[in-house]
Every structure is written in structure tokens, then in C-alpha cells.
């Protein structure tokens, strides 16, 4: 057993971090938000750059043109995406890249932006619909492919996360079946872990933002991070992040090698702990920032709002906890 990053994994992580910070630094993130919003909030140029870096083809076999890595490596990559708040249906497109034929190939190459939705969710809200080339629907019998252009709905004027536009839909076209129920279940698991990885990245970044502010901001003649009330908020944020990290990485490794644990328990745990860390850290980071945390110009709220969005994807806390209890 050696549950630490391998040298390759460390290199992968630092490469992706460099890429993310370089290509989607704070200025570009803010510009996309404030000055140059694009349809469905998916920047096509950036999307292709992500594809070139292997975001979507990471787990596609090398002989099929992919990178040939596992869920563990994907989790490391998606953690970095969470850290810089990369927008768009990243997990859905990553999953779609494993589809056979053209749909998979286009997703892998960044030529298609792919959305994903649980068919029986209510209310039916589809993220990034205006940017989608393809919409996949998870159902009991498998995965159905729907033409996003045929989906009728009402675009929500004020999405809670400004980077995640949503469209309210009454009913979905039936679409055609492109994968069976086994694949759908596998997607649900990988999707939950990668979304947990996004939450991990958010949780970690929020810890950094709060800690940095606590070291800079002075009140009563000293930096506020010297007061236990603030210091302990930051400490709790770090603890949540490290727990989520262990849970997400363990689940990813377990999906790659199911013999090392119970994949179901591991996946549910990764999502529960990731959601918990990201959303609570968002609350605490806001509190550490005081009044500034309530302003649009400080990034904390953007992370918190994204965390709220991810918390509804691939199973919310309540249903995941119930599913975990059922394993006892």
C-alpha cells in the first residue's frame, strides 16, 4: 500500500495547476463573468484547450487516442479545475468521451460540449443548455441521447451561480439509447467522484482564500488570524478539506481497482465529504472575510455558489447518506 501521489501523479497535478492558473486565472475568470459572457457560459476556445490538455480524453484508452489514465488521475485534474472555478459541463463531457464512435470522439476532442441530467430529477433544470451540442439523459434503462435543440424550456434569468446558467424544462424528448444501465451506473459513480474532486478543489481554495485574508486583515491592532475565533474557523476548513481529499482520492483509486474496497461506500463517501467540505468552507470563508465576504468583488461567493450547484449533482447529501445507511 502506498496511498500517496506517485511521481507521475505529482507531475500531472503541477502541470494541470500551471495550465489552469495560466489559462483561467482570476482576470480571465472575472472577464468571462463581467465583460464577455458567452452562450451557456462555455468559452469554446478554452474548451478546446482543455481538451488538448487531456481533460476529456484522460481515461480513454491510448489505442483509442486517449491518455489511458484512470479515475485517480482524473480526480487530480478535476480538483485543479475546481480550484480555479473552470465553468462548463466538465464532468459530463469527460464521461461522454468514453462513448464509442463519433459522439465520444467529439467530446474527447473538445469539439462537442456535452450535458448530462438525471431523467427523473425534479424540478428538471439543465445546466449550460445554450452551449450544448449533445445532451445525455441517465435513466433506469441506460443513457439516452437527446438533441439539445429539441429541448423546450425557459432560461432562468438569475441562476444562483452566474457561471452555471440553467434552463427549466417541463419534459425531455425521449432520445435514443446509447448505453445500457450498467454503463449508466458506472457513469453515476465516476461522475460522483469527479464532482467530489471539484468540490475538493473548491474547499481547498476557500481555505487558502480565508487563511490569506486572515493573515492580512487587521482589526484591534493585530491580524484577525491571531484571534482564536478566526483561527479556529480556518483550522476547521483545513480539516474538512483534508478529510474530503482522503475520501475523494480513495474513491477514485477504488474505482480503478475495486478489489481494494467497497466502491459503492467509497463513492458515496467521496461525494458526501466533498459536498460537506465545499459548502461549509464557503460559509466559513464568507464569515472570515466579514463584510467583504458579502461583496461581489471578493471571489468567495463564486466558490460557494458553485459548491451549491455541485452539491445537487450526482446525488445530494440526503440521498447519499440514506444510501450509506443502507449499506450498514
Amino acid at each position, binding site marked *: 500500500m502506498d496511498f500517496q501521489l506517485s511521481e507521475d501523479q505529482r507531475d500531472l497535478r503541477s502541470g494541470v495547476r500551471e495550465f489552469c492558473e495560466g489559462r483561467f486565472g482570476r482576470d480571465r475568470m472575472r472577464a468571462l463573468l463581467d465583460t464577455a459572457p458567452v452562450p451557456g457560459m462555455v468559452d469554446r476556445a478554452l474548451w478546446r484547450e482543455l481538451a488538448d490538455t487531456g481533460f476529456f480524453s484522460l481515461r480513454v484508452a491510448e489505442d483509442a487516442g486517449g491518455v489511458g489514465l484512470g479515475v485517480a488521475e482524473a480526480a487530480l485534474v478535476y480538483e485543479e479545475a475546481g480550484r480555479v472555478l473552470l465553468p462548463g459541463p466538465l464532468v459530463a463531457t469527460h464521461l461522454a468521451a468514453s462513448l464509442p464512435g463519433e459522439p465520444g470522439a467529439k467530446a474527447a476532442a473538445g469539439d462537442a460540449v456535452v450535458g448530462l441530467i438525471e431523467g427523473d430529477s425534479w424540478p428538471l433544470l439543465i445546466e449550460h443548455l445554450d452551449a450544448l451540442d449533445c445532451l445525455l439523459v441517465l435513466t433506469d434503462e441506460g443513457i439516452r441521447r437527446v438533441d439539445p435543440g429539441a429541448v423546450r424550456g425557459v432560461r*432562468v434569468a438569475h441562476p444562483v451561480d452566474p457561471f452555471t446558467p440553467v434552463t427549466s424544462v417541463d419534459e425531455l424528448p425521449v432520445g435514443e439509447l446509447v448505453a445500457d444501465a450498467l454503463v449508466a451506473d458506472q457513469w453515476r459513480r465516476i461522475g460522483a467522484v469527479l464532482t467530489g474532486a471539484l468540490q475538493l478543489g473548491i474547499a481547498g481554495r476557500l481555505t487558502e482564500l480565508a487563511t490569506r485574508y486572515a493573515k492580512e486583515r487587521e482589526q*484591534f491592532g493585530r491580524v484577525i488570524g491571531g484571534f482564536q*475565533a478566526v483561527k479556529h474557523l480556518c483550522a476547521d476548513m483545513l480539516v474538512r478539506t483534508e478529510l474530503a481529499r482522503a475520501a475523494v482520492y480513495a474513491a477514485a483509486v477504488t474505482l480503478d481497482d475495486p478489489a481494494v474496497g467497497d466502491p459503492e461506500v467509497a463513492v458515496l463517501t467521496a461525494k458526501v465529504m466533498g459536498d460537506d467540505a465545499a459548502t461549509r468552507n464557503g460559509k466559513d470563508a464568507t464569515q472570515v472575510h466579514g463584510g467583504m465576504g458579502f461583496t461581489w468583488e471578493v471571489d468567495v461567493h463564486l466558490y460557494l455558489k458553485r459548491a451549491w450547484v455541485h452539491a445537487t449533482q450526482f446525488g445530494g447529501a440526503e440521498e447519499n447518506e440514506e444510501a450509506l445507511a443502507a449499506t450498514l
Partner: protein
Amino acid sequence: MDLRYTEAEERFRAELRAWLDRAIPLLPAKPDRNDWPGRRAYDTAWQRLLFEAGYAGLHWSVEAGGKGATPTEHLIFLEETERAGAPYVGANFVGLLHAGPTIDAAGTDEQRRRYLPGILRGDDVWCQGFSEPGAGSDLASLRTRAVRDGDDYVVNGSKIWTSHAEVADYCEMLVRTDPDAPKHKGITWLIVPMDTPGITIRPLETVMGTSEFAEVFFDDVRVPVANRVGEENDGWRVTMVTLSFERGTAFVSEVVACQRLLRELAALAKKVTRRQASAWDDLALRRELGHLTAEFEALWALTKWNVSEAQRSGVPGVGGSVFKLRFSETKQKVYDLAHRLLGRAALAVDDVAGLPSGSLMDERLSSLSYTIAAGTSQIQRNIVGERILGLPKER
């Protein structure tokens, strides 16, 4: 211990209700949230109605033009206006609750004559210039300077978290007049007309995407010495007098509103289906709603306790921080529950699928400020620990 209202109090309530029944239907449509002139007009029109009906400055002294009502009558007023769906105090807040009482307590006769009637009639809107970018929890470390120059003070610096700055006539302001004195000793309280040259207002966008607040910049702004309330360098004490004017009624409207919200959430839970079952079948959710019901019932009882204490003693007890601490954290829990109840509808700050996600998510975002604004929960715990329990101060 008597929770029964006196006959006089019941009469006051009955008359108020009767008037509200007549007045509310006459209100114009609510202005858009970002229409500041519209909001000013709406709020001051309501104040004018109150003035004409004899309810303006209910809790102000008779000498100041108010009604000299008891804290209990004030509680009844706030409870009934909230239940009736009357407008909030809104743009009149600073004038009625802060600036007016301060001028009454510490101003000159001339200042009282000049400023108080406009507040009561809804003619004048006031804003507050206390907090600064560098002085939040540690308000007394404020650095906006006022230097005496003949009959004027020359003010330089900036203030933050100022509501209604764009539409205000006056600003009640704390400035530093003696930078060498201990921080609480060099502060002065000024009245600044907002049309004075040198004032710049920059809206401050909140996490909700709204501009509830502004930053206000002062660049060589000349303020007559006659606009000083209280003595030079005595502004901290002047401010503290006003803060103690609150008499336990600060959160009356909000507690009443939260109790109504819990009923609305219960109704919503009965309507919403989650994973093939009514959300109301979820025992965990019901228990949480039940616990919150207890919290607000207790907070309502504590409100009456604090109001009665203020009524007996003439000054409020130390209960303000106790109340504020618990209330703000509990109200956050209500919106956290609402958020979870909405499920995926929480992705929208607009109503979707017949769910009230618009208002609930807007308030959910707003709720992040409850434990921060007007003294963070951390500061409130310090106050409770130090002033009530006598634990040693932070070093």
C-alpha cells in the same frame, strides 16, 4: 410576569389595526429593488402617511415631536405593521432609529428644530457614515479625518456599507478629530449634507448582485462646525447613547416574519415531492422545522422579556447581543433548510416549477450577512463573555 396587554395597549393595537386596514390598500406598487429614487419615494410616502396618522416617531420623546410611546407600544406597532404587510422602515431607518434620537439626546435646540421634523414627516432621508474599509468590527479605529479650518471641519477619507447614500439628504458621520488621542477619545459626530461638494458615491455590489450599499468618498468636504453634535472628540460617547436607544425592539418585525416563513415552508414541504414521497413525510425535515418553531417562539418570548425590562428600567438590558447572536444564527438555519427543501430548484434565484425559489434563494444569499452585519457573531460572543459574564478582555 404578565404577558397580558393592558387595556390601553389593546386599544392602541385595535386602532392601529383599523388604520392599517385602511392605509395598506392605498399603497402604490412596490418599486423595483434597484430603483433607488423609487424606493426613496415609496418609503418616505409611507412615513408621511404614518406622520399624518399620528404614528411617526412613536418611540421618540414628545419634546422631539414623537409620541413618547412605551417599548410595549413600539413592539405592538412593529408586530402589527409586519403582520399587515406594511412597508419596512427602509430609507427612513437611519433618521428614525439613529440620527434623530442622537440629535434629540445630544444636539442643540437649533439642531433639533432644524433636523427632527423632516425625519418625522418623511421629508428627509439620512444615511450613516460610520464603518470604513479598515474599521469594521473595530469601528473605533476609524481614520476619516476632520480638520478644523475656521468655522468648518474639512473632511477627508471614506466610508463603507452606507445604505441609501445615493438618495440621502444627510449623513450622520463619525470622523477623527484628534489622531493623537486614544482611539475612542478623538472621534466627533457630524451632520453632513449629502449635496456638499467633494462627496463621491460608489455603489458596492453584493453577492446577490444588488447594490444595497455604497462606498462614500470624502475629498476636502467642508462641514460647518455648527453641524457637530455633542462636543469635539466626544463622538464615541454620543454614538453609544444612541445605540442604547433600541429598547429590545430591534428584531420584532424579523421574528414575526420568520414565524410566518416557517408556516410557508411547512406548506411548501407538503406540496413538494422528493424521491417519490412528500417532503413533509421526511421526519428529519419536520423535526428541524419543529425545532426552529421552538427557537422563534423562544426568541419571541425573549423579545417580550427585553422590551419589558426596557420599559421598567428606561434603559435596555445587556440582552441585545444575546438576542442578536441567537437570532442571526437561527435565521440562517431557516434559509439553509429552505435551500435544501428546494433541491435542484436552488440553482435558480427565480421561481421555477411553481416553487418560490426566487425569494427563498435571494434571502438565502442575503442570510450570509446575518452573522456579519451589525457586529459579527464572533464580536457578539466577546461582548456576552466579557460584559455579561465578566471574562477578561482580549489582550
